[in-house]
């Protein structure tokens, strides 16, 4: 299970980078050509804007390609991008299967299921997070709410919805990949172009999870990060550095 979690890191990086190179080729997201610049790709616009407004980026050689040069394999690489996307996608699906089987066999799914007390608990967690900076500034003690479950309500909501997002990413991906043989799947997602937009939006939906996930794991300290790798967390006084 833990291995399956960490495998997601290289797989998702591969999927996102190659996915952005596939996006580069897809006109579904494009708008009417800008009369001044002749550009029709929203991400090219982003690159141009960044290079015009961010200090230190004014000299960039090809502003429309900035996003693709930094957040994808690069522009004009559809062929290699597709191969990497398929490789990572098959491994990602296999990994998802391992995760699903593992969480059922090991009973880990129990910690992720939503509970009736979740809304109240989530609000108390939110209040805790919002209050941290003020408590630090005023040097007041700010205790973490106590729960008798493995995860708090916010964690549970996140860890429950991310596998769901992953599942939907895979299914919309299949709708795009085999729109003729799996045409009922395309219809389910409201059409071929809509399925592509959904697939892209689902990728964006990882970000609101990933950023707090990384910040909080680092903030929680070494014992938590180690527990994500080895599977146990220490309670002995000598482990508390």
């Amino acid at each position, binding site marked *: 299970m833990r291995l399956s979690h960490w495998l997601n890191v290289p797989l998702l990086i591969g999927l996102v980078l190659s996915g952005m190179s*596939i*996006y580069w*080729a*897809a*006109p*579904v997201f494009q708008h009417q050509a800008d009369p001044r610049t002749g550009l029709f790709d929203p991400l090219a616009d982003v690159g141009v804007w960044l290079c015009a407004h961010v200090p230190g980026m004014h000299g960039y050689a090809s502003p429309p390609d900035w996003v693709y040069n930094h957040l994808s394999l690069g522009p004009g690489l*559809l*062929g*290699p991008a*597709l*191969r*990497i996307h*398929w*490789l990572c996608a*098959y491994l990602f699906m296999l990994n998802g299967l391992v995760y699903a089987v593992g969480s059922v066999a090991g*009973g880990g799914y*129990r*910690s992720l*299921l939503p509970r009736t007390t979740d809304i109240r608990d989530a609000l108390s967690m939110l209040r805790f997070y919002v209050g941290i900076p003020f408590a630090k500034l005023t040097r007041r003690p700010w205790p973490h709410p106590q729960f008798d*479950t*493995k995860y708090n309500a916010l964690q549970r909501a996140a860890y429950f919805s991310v596998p769901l997002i992953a599942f939907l990413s895979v299914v919309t991906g299949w709708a*795009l*990949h*085999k*729109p*003729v*043989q*799996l*045409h009922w799947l395309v219809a389910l997602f409201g059409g*071929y*172009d809509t399925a*592509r937009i959904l697939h892209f939006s689902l990728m964006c939906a990882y970000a609101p999870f990933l950023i707090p996930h990384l910040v909080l794991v680092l903030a929680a300290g*070494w014992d938590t990060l*180690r527990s994500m790798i*080895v599977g*146990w967390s*220490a*309670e*002995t006084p*000598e*482990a508390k*550095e």
Partner: protein
Amino acid sequence: MKATDDDPAQAQRTDVPGVASLFRERPLEQLELPSRLVRRSSRRAVLLYGAGAASLVGAGSLLPPATLGGLGLSTNADRTRREWLLNQALRLDDDIAEALYSRDRMVPTYDKAQITPLKNNYNGATPDPSYIAEWSLLLDGLVSGVSLSLNIQSLLARFAVHEQITRLVCVEGWSAIAWWSGLRFGDLLSAYPPVSQAKWARIESSVNLDSAGNRDPYFMSLDLATAGHQQTLLATHFNGRPLTVEHGAPLRLVAPMKLGLKNVKAITRISYTAEEPADYWANRGYSRYDGI
């Protein structure tokens, strides 16, 4: 966290049978670990391991390439292995696409009201229409052992014309719904049967140009299982009118169960083969089956 066997409340809760117990969280397990293990995985220790590994890699990469090759750390081999892995994934994906395909499963069709514009997607330059006047289709790899040359009039006179409104899907991610008419590839296969061992058709357009306007013949492999599908057309008409040069006059392939790049325009030759023929885009790192 502390779940002990002599806690009666705990024991009662875990003993409840039935559906509810499927959803209830179990108490965390208490492990006894030797303090040695905890000390070895302290943050300071792991940072030291990391620094050690990084300096080994850093020093190792300074070694001459010949030495690295001798140690089995050659970067060329890595590249070959990576290529191999990527190609395996592509083959697996093609095999899955082939397993999904069925000759009996119909491709979705649309109404005339759903037709969308179809752009001229000649990869390079559009050929000069002068080829159309002297166009003929060369057929070889036939059971008769002779090559045949057919012109458009004889094709239209001999075969029934079918029409369909299907979606053409491009590898780039766009698609267009278009109204095609023409003869069924399957009818051509029955009228001029290929050699018995043939499993493939190599479909070529010798009039294709590259982006600089030079001759760049376009060739593509098509499995005969797909060629025989009743919605695989050798189209002569687009949206009710004879094909224009942009859309592959006078004869083009319409195989809506394949990506657009398999739908060869201005076909000049069809050869039947036992071995899988080369494919323009597969040579450039794309899939060779392209089933959608």
